[in-house]
């Protein structure tokens, strides 16, 4: 059998061309030596109010592996680039980085489809990418330019794309919104669900418990996901929560606690949770145990409430990208050169995006007043004084 490759080097799109003959072969190498798929043992999850959990093994195909690797590497490099641009004061304001937690975003997306819905809090750059945003749009939004995914008006915390409702600044406020989206899915009967994420700090907000109640009562297709990275800003989970078993906090809602550093664990758990929702059983709660390498935001060095040794230990023992890489290499699913090529391609993509993000012009001043209300006709917005007006267009 031969494999076609698209000329832009995108190895993700491969079509099986057994019937089309040798004339379509453009590859110079044959990948027939690699293992097309392998099955891995994954950690058992902890269960709450469930008889069975997700499977203890996960089958990964070569394509999936390369896709997950590339996406996680893209998120990692993008966040590190954002760190760099922030220190150069090209990105300003607030910037909450996701490196360390890549397996969560990529694993979740592996368990649902793009027609499902997702909402999260402010550590959202990774999700913006997995939900369909491009690195260019994300970086331009960070620098506040018109090519940004929210036209430069939102910044780091407010990024949106189709079926991705942000990007939300107020902690915990996004969870009831997710329930609303889930209600719409149930009402429209489209078999879609909503993934509603929040952190270990937000888990103590009252509105989350209100949401647990409503979604259980009405059996909404919502997956609550608590991304527990052990620290709410600088407060560790032991110091802020009476119960650190976040997967049990939904009480009457079934819950599972998952290793959030293993992309396959996250994927299998998400598939399990999605099946639970789609069967009409109502909500389910997933706790992903994960870790962020950076501080809470760029103004937090991240070492005043935890030791450098702790960060280093997680990096060396549980890094999600290394874990996937080791698995693929030791099972001959990819070669080191191939992964290096991906790294180089990712690096170039990030560089190009950063270049765009620093040279794209800022949005025009009229955008200050646009999109306040929906309006057919432009209307006047009062400016700094009652007699200065700007025009709002929609």
């Amino acid at each position: 059998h031969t494999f076609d490759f698209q000329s832009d080097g995108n190895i993700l799109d491969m079509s099986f061309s057994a019937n089309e003959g040798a004339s379509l072969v453009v590859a110079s190498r044959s990948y027939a030596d690699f293992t097309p798929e392998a099955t891995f043992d994954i950690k058992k999850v902890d269960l709450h109010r469930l008889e069975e959990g997700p499977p203890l093994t996960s089958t990964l195909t070569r394509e999936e592996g390369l896709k997950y690797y590339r996406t996680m590497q893209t998120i990692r490099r993008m966040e590190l680039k954002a760190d760099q641009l922030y220190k150069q004061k090209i990105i300003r304001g607030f910037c909450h980085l996701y490196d360390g937690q890549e397996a969560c975003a990529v694993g979740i997306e592996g368990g649902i489809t793009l027609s499902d819905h997702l909402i999260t809090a402010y550590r959202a750059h990774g999700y913006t990418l997995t939900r369909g945003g491009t690195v260019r749009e994300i970086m331009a939004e960070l620098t506040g330019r018109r090519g940004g995914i929210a036209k430069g008006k939102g910044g780091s915390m407010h990024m949106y794309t189709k079926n991705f409702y942000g990007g939300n600044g107020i902690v915990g406020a996004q969870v009831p919104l997710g329930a609303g989206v889930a209600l719409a899915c149930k009402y429209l009967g489209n078999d879609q669900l909503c993934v509603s994420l929040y952190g270990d700090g937000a888990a103590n907000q009252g509105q989350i418990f209100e949401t647990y109640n409503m979604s259980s009562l009405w059996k909404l297709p919502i997956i609550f996901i608590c991304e527990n990275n052990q620290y709410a800003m600088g407060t560790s989970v032991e110091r802020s929560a009476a119960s650190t078993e976040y997967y049990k906090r939904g009480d009457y809602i079934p819950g599972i606690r998952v290793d959030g550093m293993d992309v396959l664990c996250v994927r299998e758990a998400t598939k399990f949770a999605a099946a639970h929702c789609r069967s009409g059983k109502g909500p389910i709660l997933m706790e992903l145990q994960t870790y962020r390498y950076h501080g809470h935001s760029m103004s937090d060095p991240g070492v005043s409430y935890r030791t450098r040794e702790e960060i280093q230990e997680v990096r060396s023992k549980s890094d999600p990208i290394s874990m996937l890489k080791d698995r693929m290499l030791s099972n001959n699913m990819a070669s080191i050169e191939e992964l290096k090529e991906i790294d180089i391609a990712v690096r170039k993509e990030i560089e190009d995006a950063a270049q765009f993000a620093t040279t794209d012009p800022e949005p025009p001043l009229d955008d200050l007043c646009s999109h306040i209300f929906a309006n057919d006709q432009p209307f006047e917005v009062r400016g700094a004084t009652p007699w200065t007006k700007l025009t709002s267009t929609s």
Partner: protein
Amino acid sequence: MLKCDMVTRMCAKYFAVHPDMNLFQSVTSALDNTLASDPTAVIFGEDVAFGGVFRCTVGLRDKYGKDRVFNTPLCEQGIVGFGIGAAVAGATAIAEIQFADYIYPAFDQIVNEAAKYRYRSGNLFDCGNLTIRAPWGCVGHGSLYHSQSPEAFFAHCPGIKVVIPRGPVQCKGLLLSCIADQNPCIFFEPKILYRAAVEQVPTEAYTIPLSQAEVIQEGSDVTLVAWGTQIHVLREVANMAQEKLGVSCELIDLQTILPWDTETVCKSVAKTGRLLISHEAPITGGFAAEISSTVQEQCFLNLEAPIARVCGYDTPFPHIFEPFYIPDKWKCFDAIKKLISY
């Protein structure tokens, strides 16, 4: 010997310690005085134990113990509700909301519980021992959720007091007044001034009366009214007006938003005939509207020109557009020119 003692004491009083303090240090000093003199005083909020995200509570936990300075989980509604309960039971409760932008989950507790406690219980109960502190106002890079000035929402609520200082000396005095006041108070601290404003502040406790506006600079042609950070903008504008237009401005710091000092402002406008009010919050429904309405009622025949308001736009506080949004000195100066030439 007696004479020497008297002299020493007089000298000590005149040369009392007034070190340089910035705004967050003046807050710490006020809280330190309170915890020292009032054994029922407790401070709580998100991250206050290690010193707070703006360092307002540095050192207090070590000095006074972990049952008097403690962290709460991330739950504003819970923090204020808990604070009301503690205050009703007799503790001097000082709650911190990490940013004024986050105060809205607690809005119901403040407006429906705290503000109405005394009234609905016929004076049997009250939560006058409650003070809520929150960082307030624009900071240059805060964007939608770290820059808001919500005083207008609370000005509409009888039963609470809303206070905003312009600098370290006022901050300490006003905060101590709020803590002492027998009504629930909300104290907004201009976050951009936490490090930027430095003054010589007395280390011992003192109070500045609430509901009293301060005439910072006397003048005869235009009355300027503001609070918090905007006072410093208007101070510069007053100098510009004097130099470039020969216009003498009277600058008033309102200090207490609710209940506000109508008398000082109206007396000034009766003298000058012209009024300019400025704040960062959006113009529609901002507190300038209340001041404007009251002044035109009281001083209608004194007015030489319509009352001017220079405020933020009617938009959410923007991310990249902040420099265009804020009511800067040029917009205020322009408004003065229009006032003078009406």
